[in-house]
C-alpha cells in the first residue's frame, strides 16, 4: 500500500479488515482503505472482482441480501456503521447512492426529487426550492425546467440518470456512491455525467465503481484496483495509471486481461 494514502489525515471513510461472504463464498478479503473527503475515488477491476460488492458495504445495501455476512469495520466520520445502535435509514441519508441503470420512480420529475425531502419532513413551502436546487446542481434544470411536472420516464436515459443524481442530492448526503453510473448511457450522456461528478466533489465525497478505465483516469483523484475480492492497490490515480506498484494492476490497466 502506498505511503501517501495511508497517511490521509482525516479520512471520511475508513475500512479496516473487511471480509464479506455470500453464503460459503468469500467475496471480499481483508479490505483496508482510507478514503479522503471531497475527492473522487474510483474502484476499478474486472467483473466479479468485488468492487460493486464493496461499494454496497459503504451504505449497507448488502443488508438486503440474506446470505450476506460481513466482518470488520467500516467507519464514516469516525463512527462504525456496522456497530450497535446504528440506524441504517439515517446512514443512507448520509451516504447516497446512484445505480447502474437509471431508475426513476413512476412519478413526475418534480415528485421524484421531492419524494425524499417530503418523507424526511422538509417544510412544504421549502420543497420547491430544494427541487430546483437539486436540478440545477445536476445540470438538468435548464433542459427541463419547463416540464418538471411531466413523467420522469419521458426523459432520455442520460437525463434520467442525472435526475437520479439530483434525487440523491435532494436528501443532502455527505457521500455519494456511484455504481457504474454510465454503463447504460451513450458517450455524450456519459461525458455530461462525468463533468457533473467532477463538479460535485466540492460538496460531496464521491466513490465511483467503473468498468471504464479511461473514465477512472479522467475523473478520479484516487483509484483502487480490485482483483478476486482483494484490494490490490490504492493510490493517487496518476500514480496508479502511470506507475503502478503491482504487476496485476499494470496488466489490467494496459488491457492484458479484464
Amino acid at each position: 500500500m502506498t505511503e501517501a494514502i495511508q497517511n490521509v489525515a482525516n479520512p471520511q471513510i475508513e475500512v479496516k479488515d473487511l471480509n464479506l461472504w455470500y453464503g460459503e463464498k468469500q467475496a471480499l478479503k481483508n479490505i483496508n482503505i482510507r478514503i479522503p473527503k471531497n475527492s473522487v475515488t474510483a474502484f476499478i477491476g474486472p467483473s466479479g472482482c468485488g468492487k460493486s460488492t464493496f461499494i454496497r458495504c459503504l451504505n449497507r445495501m448488502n443488508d438486503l441480501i440474506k446470505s450476506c455476512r460481513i466482518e470488520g469495520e467500516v467507519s464514516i466520520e469516525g463512527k462504525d456503521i456496522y456497530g450497535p445502535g446504528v440506524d441504517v435509514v439515517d446512514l443512507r441519508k448520509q451516504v447516497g447512492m446512484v445505480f447502474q441503470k437509471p431508475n426513476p420512480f413512476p412519478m413526475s420529475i418534480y415528485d421524484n426529487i421531492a419524494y425524499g425531502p417530503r418523507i424526511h419532513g422538509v417544510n412544504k413551502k421549502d420543497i420547491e426550492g430544494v427541487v430546483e436546487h437539486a436540478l440545477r446542481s445536476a445540470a438538468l434544470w435548464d433542459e427541463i425546467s419547463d416540464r418538471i411536472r411531466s413523467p420522469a420516464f419521458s426523459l432520455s436515459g442520460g437525463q434520467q440518470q442525472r435526475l437520479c443524481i439530483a434525487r440523491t442530492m435532494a436528501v443532502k448526503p455527505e457521500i455519494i456512491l456511484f455504481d457504474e453510473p454510465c454503463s447504460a448511457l451513450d458517450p455524450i450522456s456519459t461525458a455530461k455525467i462525468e463533468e457533473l461528478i467532477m463538479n460535485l466533489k466540492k460538496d460531496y465525497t464521491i466513490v465511483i465503481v467503473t468498468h471504464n478505465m479511461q473514465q477512472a483516469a479522467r475523473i478520479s483523484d484516487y483509484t483502487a484496483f480490485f482483483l478476486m475480492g482483494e484490494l490490490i492497490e490504492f493510490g493517487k490515480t496518476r500514480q496508479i495509471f502511470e506507475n503502478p506498484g503491482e504487476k496485476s494492476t499494470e496488466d489490467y490497466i494496459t488491457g492484458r486481461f479484464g
Partner: protein
Amino acid sequence: MGLNAKTSEIIAFAFLTLAALTVAGFVLFILYYIVSNGYSAISIEFLTEMPRKMMTEGGIYPAIVGTVYLIIGSMLVALPMGILAAIYLTEYAGENRTTWAIEMAINNLAGTPSVVFGLFGLAMFVKYLGFGPSLLSASLTLALLIIPVIIRSSEEALLAVPPEYRESSLALGISKWQTIRHVVLPASIPGIVTGSILSIGRVAGETAPILLTGAAYFLPRLPDSVYSQFMALPCHLFVLATAGTNIAQTRPLQYGTALVLLMIVLAVNFVAVLVRRYYRQKLKI
C-alpha cells in the same frame, strides 16, 4: 415419418383457434340466451319494486340492494386484510416454517368448496359470535372466501414492482415501510385492482355461503342494519327456479334476475377497469 413443419403448424393453428372460438362461443351463447329470455322482464318496476304475490309478480329491488351490500361489505373486509397479508408475505416474511404454514393455509383456503365456508360462517359468525343470520355474517363469510384470491393477486402485483424502485428508495434513507407505502404500493395498484375484479364476480354470484349465513327466502323490505337478513340475486334466482310457488309462471322473472346479476357484475368490472386505467396513466407504466 413425422409431418413436416408447415403441415403441423397448420394443424396446431387450427386446433388452437377452434379451442379459443369454442370458449368464446359458449360465453356468447350464454349471454345471448340470458339476454334474449330475460330482457322482456326488465322494466323500471322490476328493478325498483318489492316482489309481490309470493314472488310471482313485482320486482327484485331488495335482491339487487342485498347483492350490492354484500359486494361492498365483503370488499371492505377482504381488500385491506388481503393486501396487508400480501405485503407481509412478499416484503417481510422470511423463508421459514411460519411462512410455509401461512402459504399452505392460503392455498388450501383457495381450494375449499364454498359451501364449507358457508358452514363455517354459520358456526362462527351466526352462532358463536352471535351475529345471527345477517348481512354482517354473510359479508364476513364471503370475505373469507375471497381473501385467498386477493392475497394471491396482490402478491403477484407486488412482486411485479421492479426491485430497483425499492433499492433506490431505500438508498435515499427512506425506511422499508415508507418505501412500501409510497413507492411499491402505488406501483402495484393496477395489478391489485385486476385481482379484486375477479373476486367481485365471485361475491356477486356465490349462493351456498349466503344461504347459510343470512340470505332470506323472501323478505319484502330492505335491510336496515348490518344485523338484518337480506335478499340477494343468486339466492332469489335459486329460490324462483327450484322452490318458488309457481316455477313455470315466474320463468321470465328468473331470466330477468339472471340478467340483472350479470349486468351488476359487468358494471362493477367496468368500473374496476376504469380505476386500473386511471392508475396506469397516472403512473405512466
